[in-house]
């Protein structure tokens, strides 16, 4: 791999084949995939106080609720979930970290008839839009729930659940660490505290400007979460993403019993339970509130009465990166060829496919089937329409 430091005037310049802006779930997965393909890549990460969805997320590899209104996104999430087992093994190989991946399915508990009806209606719409491609998710009754979670008392409030065999989970902090370490071990260059302040395009080369020096490459991937909103116009792209806060509670560690993630409830590989997941539109305020935490805890106890004796260890708020239709955006600039954006709030689910197909798309221009549907162009409604 060629590495060089060029000089443009008086400015020291680090060059690579690809610059990935963002060291979170999206950036690290794509950068890891590029390094795996022997592409000389530099990953520019922000400082520790940057907004980091990657350090606050829930850890689900989740398919059953993804892509209402856009089947391509459901199929994309499902394909990633199916790549995940091999991806976890590959990460273990290259980074020496077991990310705690499980893929024995997942369920979302439904409390009361209204929730069952609403979920059933959504599932029918997803089944219809999937057509012959299929949508592997079904409503199961209390007995089936008990069979999947043996020895666990289910609350009386639980009416049914939607179960998908494609769902699973992972330890998200270990995942982020594994991708960053794997990237570095494969020869990638990781640079923290390199918030990109500007991007220039000169003679087919992108120059990313940071307070810690400038970086130059013929290709640049914008995978900086909310940072994309500011950066995308610099390369002729747009990403109408918005912040949404989720709050998460974490309990003391107990003996492992919950064999699969139950939507907003899961037991981590280390024994603690995580409860989520709220949705609030409050800008970039990542605090927590007693009212939301109380509602989250109440629902968890309604699902599993024994949880009332669990003690909370910590809680946090985290800012999701949401697109208008909650489906992923992948785009290459037409005005600035070689500039890409990639974003979604589902960085854990999509990590496997980002490291495979998306890295190959950036490296070789191999466009996955139906990929144009992920363009941010879908949000531009013509004024004459």
């Amino acid at each position, binding site marked *: 791999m060629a590495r060089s430091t060029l000089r443009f005037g008086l400015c020291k310049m680090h060059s690579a084949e690809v610059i990935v802006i963002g060291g979170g779930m999206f950036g690290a997965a794509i950068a890891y995939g590029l390094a795996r393909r022997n592409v000389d890549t530099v990953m520019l990460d922000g400082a520790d106080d940057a907004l980091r969805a990657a350090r606050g997320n829930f850890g689900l590899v989740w398919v059953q609720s993804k892509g209402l209104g856009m089947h391509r996104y459901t199929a994309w999430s499902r394909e990633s979930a199916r790549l995940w087992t091999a991806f976890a093994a590959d990460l273990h190989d290259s980074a020496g970290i077991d990310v705690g991946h499980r893929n024995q399915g997942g369920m979302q508990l439904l409390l009361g008839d209204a929730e069952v009806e609403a979920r059933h209606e959504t599932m029918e719409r997803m089944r219809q839009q999937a057509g012959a491609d299929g949508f592997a998710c079904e409503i199961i009754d209390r007995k089936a729930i008990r069979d999947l979670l043996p*020895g666990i008392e289910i609350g009386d409030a639980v009416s049914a659940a939607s179960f998908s065999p494609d769902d699973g989970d992972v330890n998200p902090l270990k995942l982020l660490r594994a991708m960053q370490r794997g990237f570095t071990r494969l020869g990638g260059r990781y640079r923290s505290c390199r918030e990109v302040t500007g991007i220039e395009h000169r003679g087919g080369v992108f120059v990313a400007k940071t307070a810690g020096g400038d970086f130059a490459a013929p290709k640049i991937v914008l995978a900086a979460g909310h940072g994309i909103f500011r950066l995308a116009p610099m390369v002729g792209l747009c990403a109408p993403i918005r912040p949404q806060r989720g709050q998460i509670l974490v309990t*003391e*560690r*107990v003996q*492992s*019993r919950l064999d699969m993630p139950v939507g907003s409830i899961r037991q981590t590989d280390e*024994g603690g339970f995580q409860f989520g997941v709220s949705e609030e539109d409050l800008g970039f305020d990542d605090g927590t509130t007693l009212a939301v935490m109380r509602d989250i805890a109440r629902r968890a106890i309604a699902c599993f009465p024994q*949880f009332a004796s*669990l003690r909370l260890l910590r809680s946090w708020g985290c800012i999701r990166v949401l697109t208008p239709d909650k489906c992923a955006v992948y785009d290459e600039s037409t005005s600035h060829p070689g500039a890409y954006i990639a974003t979604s709030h589902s960085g854990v689910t999509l990590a496997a496919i980002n490291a495979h197909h998306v890295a190959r798309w950036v490296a070789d221009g191999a466009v996955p089937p139906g990929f144009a549907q992920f363009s941010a162009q879908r949000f531009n409604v013509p004024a004459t329409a």
Partner: protein
Amino acid sequence: MFQRLHDPAAPTVTINFEGETLVADARDSVAAALLAADAGHTRTTPVSGARRAPFCMMGVCFECLVEIDGLANQQACMIRVRAGMDVRRQDGARRLYP
């Protein structure tokens, strides 16, 4: 192994550890009382079963987890002794279900 440096005439309380009666300074944390009494290990780990004892003494390492009055996963370094307290070693992870 540990020796108290302060006034030996301080008020004392008695607690139970694994069925044995221990005399503690009334201002001790449970962890300090167990260390002062040379009580040995206070838990075994869920992963390897290795023996552990209080370490950080300030609530961050979770090495001192014990069962107090029937409730597991208690940080001995963060809880003050109370007269008659029943303290047990914690073997492995707390069981939420039988």
